[in-house]
C-alpha cells in the first residue's frame, strides 16, 4: 500500500516541487494545504500516514496538540518522539521542514519520505538563492551604471574614466564596487 502524505506549505512553488518528487518516488499525496484556515477540519476529512509541514508555518503548534491528545483520538504523532535519529531531525530543521506521523505508522517508512522532503526543500532554497544572487547582480550592475552616469555628467568624465575611478576607490577603501556606487548615488541624492 502506498503511504499517504499531506503537504502543508504556503509556498505554492515549493509544494509543487515536493509533490512531484513524492509522486515520482511512489507516494500518494492526498492533500496539499496552502492555507491553515480550518486545518483541523481539513485533516479530519483526509486521512493520511504522514504530514510534511513547512517549518515556518504557524500551524505546527496546531499539529503539536493533536499529538498530545492521541490517547482519545488516533491523530498525528510528532516524529521527534518516535525517531531517535537526531542527525536527521537536525537536517530537517535546517532545511526548514518538519514532519508528523499518524500513530501506528511505521517509523522506518518515515525516513525515506522525509529525505525526499529535505532534498526538495534544499533544492528549492538553492534555487531561490541563485535567483536572488542573479537579481542582486543585476541590481548591482544598475547601481554602477547610475554612479558612472553621475560622474560622467557632473565631473565631465568619459565612461572608462568614470568606471576606473569607481574601481580605484573601491580598491582603496576595500569596498565592493556596488558599495562605492551606492555611496556616490546617495551622496549625489543628498546634494543635487
Amino acid at each position, binding site marked *: 500500500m502506498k503511504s499517504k502524505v499531506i503537504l502543508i506549505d504556503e509556498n505554492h512553488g515549493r509544494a509543487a516541487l515536493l509533490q512531484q518528487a513524492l509522486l515520482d518516488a511512489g507516494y500518494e499525496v492526498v492533500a496539499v494545504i496552502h492555507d491553515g*484556515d480550518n486545518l483541523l477540519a481539513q485533516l479530519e476529512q483526509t486521512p493520511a500516514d504522514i504530514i510534511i509541514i513547512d517549518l515556518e508555518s504557524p500551524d505546527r503548534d*496546531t*499539529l503539536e496538540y493533536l499529538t498530545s491528545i492521541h490517547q482519545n483520538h488516533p491523530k498525528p504523532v510528532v516524529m521527534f518522539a518516535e525517531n531517535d535519529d537526531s542527525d536527521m531531525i537536525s537536517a530537517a530543521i535546517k532545511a526548514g521542514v518538519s514532519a508528523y506521523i499518524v500513530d501506528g505508522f511505521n517509523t522506518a517508512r518515515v525516513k525515506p519520505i522525509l529525505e525526499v522532503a529535505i532534498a526538495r526543500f534544499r533544492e528549492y532554497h538553492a534555487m531561490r538563492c541563485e535567483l536572488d544572487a542573479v537579481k542582486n547582480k543585476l541590481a548591482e550592475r544598475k547601481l554602477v551604471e547610475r554612479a558612472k552616469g553621475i560622474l560622467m555628467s*557632473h565631473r565631465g568624465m568619459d565612461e572608462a574614466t568614470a568606471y576606473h575611478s569607481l574601481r580605484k576607490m573601491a580598491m582603496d577603501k576595500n569596498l565592493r564596487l556596488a*558599495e562605492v556606487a551606492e555611496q556616490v548615488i546617495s551622496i549625489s541624492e543628498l546634494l543635487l
Partner: protein
Amino acid sequence: MKDNHINRRNFLKMGSGIILGASAMGLSSFRSVAYAAGNTGLEKVKLSLGIIPLTDCAPIVVAKEKGFFSKYGLDVAISKEASWANIRDKVSIGALDGAHMLAGMPIAATLGVGALPKPTVTAFSMDLNGNAITVSNDLYERMMKADPEAMKSSSTSAQALKKVIDQEKAAGKEPMTFAMVFPVSTHNYQLRYWMGAAGINPDQDVRLIVIPPPQMVANLRANNIMGYCVGEPWNERAVEMGIGRVIATSYEIWNNNPEKVFAVTQEWAEKNPHTHQAVIMGLLDAAQWMDKPENRMEVVKIISAASYVNAPEDVVKMSMTGTFQYTKAEKPKDLPDFNVFYRYAATFPWQSHAAWFITQMLRWGQITKPLDIKKTAQSVYRPDIYREAAKALGLPAPTIDYKTEGTHKAPWSLTEATSPIAMGSDMFSDNMVYDPAKLVKYLAAFKVHNMQVSIADLEKMNG
C-alpha cells in the same frame, strides 16, 4: 532653483572627499562590533535569540533595542519564530542560542513531553501574568442567562459555563470548542484550571484545540471557536473589534502567576556560563527599566514594530499601561499587575513554579510515568545562575527556591532574600493552597483531572 543647482554642482566637485568620509562612517559601524568581540570572559558574543510575537517578548527586545545586551558585550540578533514548536526545536538543535519560552516548555523539553528529550534550563523568568480568557459575545450572553450570579466574578464565571455546557449536553449538541496556544502552555493550564474549578472536564465536556495566537480573533469571529486563552494583544484585539469579551485574566485565576521564561539547553549553559550570565544581566536591566510605569509607552512603541509584535500601538498599549478593558461597552479598568516584569521577584526562577507546572502536566495526563518532581524542577529551573547575575548587579535575590502560593491576599515582604523584596498577592481563584512541600497531596486534591500516573506511584518517588 538655478542657484541651488550650482550649489549642488559645487558640492559634487568635492566628490571624492565626501565619499571618503562616507566610507569611513561605514567602517566605524563595523568596528563597534569588533570592540564588543574583544570583551574578555564571554565564550560567545554573537547570539541569536528566538521570540514569538507577543507583548511579553518585550524583555528580550528591550534588552537589545535599549542597549542592555551590548552593555555587557553581547551582539544579539532576534529571530521572530512562527511557532512554539520551532522555538523548542531550534533551541534543541542549537540553531538558536536561547529563546522566549512558555514557562512549562523547558520542563517538557527536558522530560520529552511531545518531543525528543533535550535537557533545557532556565535561569530567568520573563514575566508574571499577561494572559486572559475571551469568549464570544454570544456565549457570554448565554452564560449571563444561565447564571447571572456566578458571572459577577471572574473566578466563578466558569460555573455559568458549566450550566451552558449541561444545557447543551441535554439538548444533544456537540461539545463547544475552545482554543489555546500550545500543549504545554501556561494558557492550556490556566484555561483547564479555570474550567476544572467549576467541575468542567476539559478533556470531555469541551473540545480544546491549539490555534496560533494571531489567528485566534479570526477564528472567534468565524464561530470556529467559542472562546480562547491567549496572551496579549490578542484578547484586547477581540475587545476592540467588539467580537468578544474577556471573562477572566490569568491574574484573576492565579495572582502573579509565572508566564514566560528565557531558556537555553543545559549543554549551552555549561559551555557558555559567562555569556549566559551576561544575557541574564542584560535581561535584568531591561526588566527593571520596563517595570517603571513612565517607560511603558516606550516599550509599547518598541515592541509594536513590524519586526516584533507587529500590532497597532493602541492595541498593544491597552494591557501594557496599567489598565485592562474587558468589553467594548465598558471603560478600561485599573489592573496595574496585568504585566509584571520585575517587581515581586518576577524574574526569579522559582523551583516551586517549575514543580507546579509538573503537577499540572501530571494532572492532565501529559506526563505518563511517575517521576521525582522536585529533582526534575531542580534540574530545569536554575536559581543558582540567576543569583550570580543578580549579585554582579547588586540586586536583591531570594535565598530560598520554593515558596507557597495561595496564602497572601495582600502585598507582603519576602524576608528570605539578600534584602527584603516586596511581593504581590498569590491567591488562586478557587482559594486552593499550593504547598511545594506536599506536592502529591496537592495533586491528589484536584477533583477534575486526567491523570495517567497513580498517586501511590508518585508518593513512592516523592516521599
